[in-house]
């Protein structure tokens, strides 16, 4: 309940924040704090410095870039779930944000923070994977773009370097016939709490068959991860229930499924398949 001491800075510009990170390799970035502060309160994490980016202007917007939308570093889950732009072009992410934590957590927690925290059972990272998002990371040396597929590296570990700040999650706009969906079983049942298993899917339907698909699963392995086997099986299929269910059987192909308090390997494998089918069907239904 009582964090250890740390130094605190709340810079007003991104440059100052990045300089602070450069100067303090032990520093942690604080945005909404919904993941960082509980860990600090339990002293599971005790950074020497906290760089609060909450006072930096220009990071709190969801912007339309023409061919993509950008979610800034300070955009909360509440804002993501309520955003018409996100609902239109990244329904899986809007849904995932609406099922993240509870109302109070959604009011403070940020989409970018959820990505960086990279919890094995979080909702939004798989939506980013399925949507083919790009992570924009800033450092004092400039910015770099990291494909979502390369961003989630290991258990609670992202590709972000200690001196970088994730300033933006960029989602390509959904073209005609493309839609996405997310479905999961939460730890307390239904959709609430972290995912026991969850699947996000984005599909494109053209000329009566599926021309593109990206599917990702959460809660089952050591990180949010793409389920390439499902996507491969979907592409070229007619999107019938039978085809979807056959494809969903590949939900954990190549994934090292891990047991936890909420599910055995067999159960999680099964759930990944169930929710792969449900998410893909929902996406197909939305794609029209």
């Amino acid at each position, binding site marked *: 309940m009582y*964090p250890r001491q740390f130094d605190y800075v*709340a810079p007003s510009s991104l440059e100052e924040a990045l300089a602070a990170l450069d100067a303090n390799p032990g520093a942690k970035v604080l945005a909404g*704090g919904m993941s960082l502060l509980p860990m600090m309160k339990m002293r599971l994490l005790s950074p020497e410095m906290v760089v609060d980016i909450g006072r930096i202007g220009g990071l709190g917007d969801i912007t339309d870039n023409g061919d993509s939308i950008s979610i800034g570093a300070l955009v909360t889950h509440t804002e993501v779930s309520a955003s018409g732009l996100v609902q239109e072009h990244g329904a899986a992410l809007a849904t995932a944000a609406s099922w993240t*934590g509870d109302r109070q957590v959604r009011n403070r927690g940020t989409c970018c923070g959820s990505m960086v925290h990279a919890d094995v059972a979080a909702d939004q990272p798989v939506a980013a994977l399925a949507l083919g998002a790009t992570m924009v990371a800033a450092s004092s040396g400039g910015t770099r773009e990291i494909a979502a597929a390369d961003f989630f590296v290991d258990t609670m570990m992202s590709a972000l370097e200690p001196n970088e700040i994730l300033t933006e999650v960029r989602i390509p706009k959904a073209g005609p016939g493309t839609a996405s969906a997310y479905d999961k079983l939460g730890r307390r049942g239904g959709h609430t709490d972290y995912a026991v298993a969850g699947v996000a899917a984005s599909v494109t339907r053209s000329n009566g068959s599926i021309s593109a698909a990206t599917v990702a699963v959460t809660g089952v392995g050591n990180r949010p991860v793409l389920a390439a086997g499902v996507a491969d099986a979907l592409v070229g299929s007619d999107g019938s229930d039978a085809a979807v269910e056959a494809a969903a059987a590949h939900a954990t192909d190549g994934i090292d499924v891990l047991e936890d308090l909420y599910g055995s390997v067999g159960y999680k494998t099964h759930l990944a398949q169930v929710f792969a089918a449900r998410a893909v069907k929902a996406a197909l239904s939305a794609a029209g």
Partner: protein
Amino acid sequence: MQVSMSVNGRQVSGDVEPRTLLVHFLREDRGLTGTHVGCESSYCGACTVKMDGKAVLSCTMLAVQAEGADITTVEGLAENGELHPVQEGFWERHGLQCGFCTPGMIISAVTLLEENDNPSEEEIRRGIEGNLCRCTGYHNIVRAIEYAGAKMRGEEPAPAEWENA
């Protein structure tokens, strides 16, 4: 560090360590002990306060993060001795027993009704899922929020269940 913010309409300031949680600043420095601490994992919601119009967890914020913010705690809800309709609802519909979750629950309900003045039972239940209560089974909390919603819409609240019995 110096921190200043508006708490229940009054400008306040204090000298805190960076690690001081907002809830400790409110309780210890400001003496506003109505805001409670019930867990350390950001799950129970007993510490919920309204910050810039939104329900937030004061135990999962540093006091310094609230610099310049507008905070309302349960102590700041009643105006001129008039209970807020949500407070009235909790009293009228037995929405509390031990009362420990109540301040956070009430703040949560106030913001819920500010966002949606006519929520369904399901919307109420989802709206307060970040506030744990161990006494009431939530049954009468839902009735209390329904009561308050009706009052805030200028409608007559449904009679209490025990009035029907």
